[in-house]
C-alpha cells in the first residue's frame, strides 16, 4: 500500500515515514505543508494520505482543508487526519461528505505500530477510523443504559447503513425503491430514536453515522 505523509514537524514526518516503512508500507514522499502535500498527492497518487491538521502558514486547520481538497479531486484516496487535540468538530466536518476512506486519529496513537498500520490499511481500503476519544465525546453520553441502535427497525438500520456510506437521501431512495419522502421519514425517526437533539449547526446526520460506526 502506498502512503504520503504531510506534517510540518520534521521529527514527526520522518519518524512516521520510518515507522510506516517498518510496517511494510511504501512511503511515496513526505510534505512539510499543505501545498507541498497537494503537489505530492497529485504527482504520486498514493492509496492513503496521512495529514497533520495543523500546518503552516497559520497553524490552524490547513491540514483539514488540504484533506477536503484531496477528497474532492481524488475520492479514491484515503485520508487519515492526525490531530493533537480532540476536536470532534473537525471529525464531523471531515465525515460530512461521507465516511468511506476517512479517518481521524489523535497523534499519539501512532506510537502503537499495530494500531497505526491497521488504521492506515482500513482507510486505504475505503473503511473509516475514528479515534476512541472523539467517539466518546460524540456519543459517550448516549451510551448510558441500553444501546438505542437496537431499537431501530430493520428498515431504519438499512437506511442508516446507507447514510454511513455517504449516500444522499435521493440515492438511498433509489437504492431501496422507495420515495424521497419515505427516506426522510425514516431518517427523522432514526434521529428521534438515537435522541439526537437539534443543534445550532445541524450535524445530526454525522452523529447518527458515528453512532452506527461505533457499534460495529
Amino acid at each position, binding site marked *: 500500500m502506498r502512503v504520503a505523509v504531510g506534517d510540518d*514537524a520534521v*521529527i*514527526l514526518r520522518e*519518524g*512516521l515515514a*520510518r*515507522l510506516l516503512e*517498518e510496517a511494510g508500507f511504501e512511503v511515496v514522499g513526505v510534505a512539510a505543508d499543505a501545498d507541498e502535500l497537494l503537489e505530492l498527492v497529485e504527482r504520486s497518487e498514493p492509496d492513503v494520505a496521512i495529514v497533520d491538521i*495543523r500546518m503552516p502558514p497559520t*497553524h*490552524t*486547520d490547513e491540514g483539514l482543508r488540504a484533506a477536503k481538497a484531496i477528497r474532492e479531486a481524488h475520492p479514491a484516496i484515503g485520508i487519515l487526519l492526525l490531530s*493533537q*487535540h*480532540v*476536536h*470532534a*468538530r473537525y471529525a464531523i466536518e471531515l465525515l460530512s461528505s461521507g465516511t468511506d476512506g476517512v479517518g481521524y486519529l*489523535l*497523534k*499519539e496513537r*501512532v*506510537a*502503537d*505500530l499495530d494500531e*497505526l498500520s491497521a488504521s492506515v490499511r482500513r482507510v486505504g481500503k475505503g473503511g473509516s477510523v475514528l479515534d476512541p476519544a472523539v467517539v466518546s*465525546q*460524540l456519543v459517550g*453520553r448516549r451510551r448510558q443504559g441500553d444501546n438505542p441502535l437496537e431499537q431501530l427497525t430493520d428498515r431504519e438500520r438499512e437506511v442508516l447503513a446507507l447514510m454511513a456510506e455517504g449516500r444522499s437521501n435521493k440515492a438511498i431512495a433509489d437504492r431501496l425503491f422507495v420515495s424521497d419522502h419515505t427516506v426522510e421519514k425514516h431518517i427523522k425517526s432514526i434521529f428521534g430514536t438515537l435522541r439526537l*437533539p437539534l*443543534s*445550532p*449547526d445541524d450535524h445530526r446526520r454525522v452523529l447518527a453515522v458515528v453512532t452506527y460506526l461505533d457499534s460495529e
Partner: protein
Amino acid sequence: MRAKLFLLVPAALVAGAGATWLAANAGANRPTEPGPYLTLLVGASLIVCGLASWHARPENRLGPMMVLTGFVWFAGLLSEATDAPLYTVGVAVEYVFVAGFVYIVLSFPSGQLRGMLDRVLIVVAVAGALGLQVAAMLFGSGRGLRCGGGCGDNLIQVFHDNGLAVALLDVQRVLGAALTLTALSLLTIRWMRASRPERRELTWVLLAGNATLLALAVTVVDDLLGTPLNSTPANVWFLTLALVPIAIVATFVRRRLARGSVAGLVVQLGEPTAPADLRAALARALGDPSLELAYWFPAEARYVTGDGRPVKVPGPDSGRRSTTVERDGTPIAMLLHDPALEHNSGLVQSVCAAAGLALENERLQAELRARLVELNASRGRLVAATDAERRRIERNLHDGTQQRLVSIAMSLGLLESKLAPAQGEAAPIVREAQTALALALEELRELTQGIHPTLLVERGLPIALEELCRRAGLPAHLEVDLDVRLPDQVETAAYYFASEALSNAVKHSHGNEVRVEVAYHGTTLTVQIADDGIGGAAIGGAGGRAGSGSGLRGLADRVEALGGQFTISSPPGRGTRLRAEIPCA
C-alpha cells in the same frame, strides 16, 4: 498718577467756560457752529467720561485720548474769536477733534489700533483735519477760509489766493466724507464678525459711533451742496458725538456690574453642584455660553475634562483662549473661553477666585475619573497581554513538547516491534514507558486546550461553545443566536466566561443539567449560563458553595475589563444563573 488727574479738572473748567462763552458771543461767523449748549455738552462729555475712564483704567489709552479730544474740541471754538492770534490757532485746530474721535471709535475697547488700515485712517484723518486746514490758511483769509464775516486776521497767510484755499477746503470735505464712510463700514464689519460676548461689548459704542459718522457724512455732503439743510445735520452730528464717550463709559460700567454677578456666583457655589452646574454657573457669571472647563491631572501633567478625558490647550490661532486657575501656586483648572474675555481679565480673575474651591473639588473628581479611565484601559491591556501569553505558551507546547513526546512514543513503538522474543523481559518495561507517555500526552492535551482554545480562533464562538458543551461533565444545552464573528477580545471573554461558568456548574451546583444561551444584539453580546442545582453561589465565596468565589471574581474581572456587566443570581435551592453582557464596540 490718579491724583494728578485732578489737576486737569481746573484746566477743563477754564477751557469749557471759555469755549462756551466764545460760542455764546461768537464774533466770527463760521460754518458748522455748535452753539454754546452743544459746545459744552460735547466737550464735557469727552472730558468727564475721559477722566472717569482714565481714572478707572490708567493702562487704557482711551481715557487720555477722550480728554485730549475734549480739549482740542474746546480749542477749536477759538475760531469764533475776533482776536487775530486766537482766531488763527482756532481755525488751525478747528477739525482736529474729528481725528481724535475716529481714533476713539476704532481703538475701542482696548485703546489700541488693530491694524494697518486703522493706522492709515488715523494718519489720513490728521492730515485732512490739520494738514489741509493749515495749507488752506497759507493761501486764504476771510471768505477764503469760509468765514461768513466778523472773523479775525489770519496771521499765517503767506499767499493771497482765496480760490485755491476754498478748493483745498473742498478737498478736505470730500476726503472727510470718504474717511467717515470707510470707518463706518470697518466698524460694522468688525461687529458682524465678533463673537457673542464681544458684540455685547461693542454694540453701544458701535451704535453711537456709527450714528456720529453717518451724521458727519451727511453734514459734509450737505455743506458741499451749499447747506440746503441749514444747521440741522451739524447739530445731529454734535449730539451723537456727545453720546460716544457716554456709551464707552457705560460699557465699562456694565463690565464692572458683571463682576457683581461674581457675588451671585459665590452664593450659588455654596450649594452642592454637579459638574455641569458649575460650568453653567461660571458661564453665566462670565457672560460666555461657550465656556469649557478643564482640570489639572498632576499624575500625567496634563488637563482633562470632567469625565477624565484629555484636553488640548488652545493655541494662539485657535480662536479660543485659556485662563489657568491656581491655588497655592499649583494649577487646578483651566477655563477655555472666548477671546473677548481677555479685555476683561478683572472679571475672569474674580470668577476664578470665587470658584477656586468648587473647581478644586471638581478637579479631584475629574482626577478620580481620569484614573478610572486609565485603570480600565490598563485592565484591558492586562487581559489582552494574558491572552497573548496563553496563545504563545499553547503554541510552544504544541510545536515543542508535544511533538517531542509523540516522537519518543514512536521510537518506543519501533523499539517494541524490534524486540526479539528472546528479549522478552524488556517488553513489559517498554509497554510501561508507553503507558506513562500516553498519560503524559493526554494530560498535556487537556492542559493546552485549557490554556488557549484553538477552535475558538479557527471556527468562532458558536462552534467553540458547542465543543465546550460536548465536553462538559453535565448534559449541556446550547442556544446560540449569533452569525457574525466578533472582535477577538469579546469572543475570548465570552468563551472563558462560559468555560469557567460551566466548570463551576459541574463542580459545585449538584445539578442535573445546564443551559448555555448566547445572544447578540448589534452592540451587546449576552452570555448566560444557568444550572438547576443548589444555588447559593456568591462572588466572595461566602455563599454555600465554597471554592467557587475566586473563579467568579475572575469571570467578573474579565467581563468588566471590556466595559461589560456581570450579574449573578443564585438563590439557595433554585439554581445559579451567571450572565455577562459584553459591549462589542
